[in-house]
């Protein structure tokens, strides 16, 4: 009885729109589990923690990290979302954008340790906008940053405290994070060329292409 030919362990399912899968659902789950542990370790528990996801994909990621923290520590960490649209430095470079949800947990942010959660860290401009947006909402005791993927090419002095995967990329590559809650499946893929628009060093186009899909 010959076993069916096993697929090589390295083979990843090809995403529908081309490109290479770098994280599959189990990889994403493991990365988030590790991030949850690292957050607890760094902050010596879950006291005063607030997870703030940056819409759209940072919010489900923040919820998943909170669920993992709950299963490890038995504490329900407040989860919110923080829309940064109006604080973007490229707001005036495109037609007015749709606002996304801002939802600050009832306890507010004053004196809390806020962990910002986003899917991809690239130029750092979104995080700068998030820091500005937070400034108008409250004064956290500390702010930390968790991202699923860090693809490099920072344009501002910003770094992540918790990283799911460091993904060295070139500027012409396009990283797509897809999540069950938003896209119906979990995957992180990397594609060779940006098909629409030009890719510029300021990163806005590439960044936007990622965000707008």
């Amino acid at each position: 009885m010959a076993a069916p030919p096993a697929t090589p362990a390295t083979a990843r399912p090809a995403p529908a729109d081309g490109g290479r899968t770098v994280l599959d659902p189990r990889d994403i789950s493991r990365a988030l589990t590790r991030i949850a542990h690292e957050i607890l370790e760094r902050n010596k528990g879950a006291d005063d923690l607030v997870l703030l996801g940056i819409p759209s994909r940072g919010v489900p990621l923040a919820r998943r990290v909170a669920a993992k923290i709950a299963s490890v520590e038995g504490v329900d960490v407040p989860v919110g979302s923080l829309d940064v649209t109006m604080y973007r430095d490229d707001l005036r470079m495109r037609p007015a954008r749709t606002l996304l949800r801002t939802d600050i947990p009832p306890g507010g942010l004053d004196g809390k340790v806020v962990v910002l959660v986003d899917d991809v860290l690239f130029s750092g401009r979104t995080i700068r906008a998030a820091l500005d947006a937070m400034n108008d909402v409250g004064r956290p005791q500390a702010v930390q940053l968790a991202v699923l993927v860090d693809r490099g090419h920072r344009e501002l002095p910003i770094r992540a405290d918790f990283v799911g995967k460091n993904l060295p990329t070139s500027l012409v590559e396009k990283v797509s994070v897809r999540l069950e809650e938003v896209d119906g499946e979990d995957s992180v893929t990397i594609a060779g060329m940006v098909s629409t628009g030009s890719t510029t060093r300021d990163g806005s186009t590439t960044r936007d292409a990622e965000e707008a899909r």
Partner: protein
Amino acid sequence: MKRHLLSAGDLTRADAELVLQTAEELRSLADRPIKKLPALRGRTVVNLFFEDSTRTRISFEAAAKRLSADVINFSAKGSSLSKGESLKDTSLTLEAMGADAVVVRHWASGAPHLLANAGWSRSSVVNAGDGTHEHPTQALLDAFTMWRHLGSLDGRRVAIVGDVLHSRVARSNALLLKTLGAEVTLVAPPTLLPVGVEGWDVETSYDIDAVLPKADVVMMLRVQRERMNAAYFPTVREYSRRYGLDGRRMDTLQDHTIVMHPGPMIRGMEITADVADSHRSVIVEQVTNGVAVRMAVLYLLLGGSEPALSLEASGEEEGR
């Protein structure tokens, strides 16, 4: 969205829903310690008011200021307008001052349209009420208030009662509510229904008591005696008895039905005090929602390099 907001009829369903969703996000700003967003920093919004208005002007002013725009108030009284300056010259002056948006209220129907389309200036024009024509941001805030209380407006019945003839609010509401799928019934004495109302695609009735039990929303209108130059009804008392909303009539409404009024209201005329102060009345909430809706309109028109694309056109998945 178009570059100007002149008529509620300019808004597609997608545009209108985008305004409502944006307003919903902006409404939470009122609960925050710092009621300020940076979106319109460095933009100039001129409030150009040729007609008396309190709530609309301060509502637009609050909206623009909360978005960090610079606001210039320009009212007809005590300015060069009262010395006979033409609309064209006023417009050229505002253009020279670098206005990005002009919020205009005018006693003449069509003045905002002229301002927007005569080629005098490049700014966006927002109609804040023109004569007996339109008042699109009032319709948007009314729709927003209904939407927050009732959810989707598809198939909802809205009764608009009173001086429809002189009401720009009624006209804008009829257009917008139809776009959003609601069924509108205008209730007024025959003399206060406009000529050509048959073409509005709304129901009309002379009998308020027949309409109220079926309505999901009752919107009372003020009798605009300042615009009346003829006798439209015999006495105030008779009008009030036949078309006013009092406690007895309120009791015939369905449990979920809300009572609205665009203000300013005349207690004892079109609405009694007990109705205006009842739990069904959302009249004060309309004022709060007005600021959020006007913020949404200003942001969507001025926040980017050009007005917002509507939800389906932009190809974004963000639309909730």
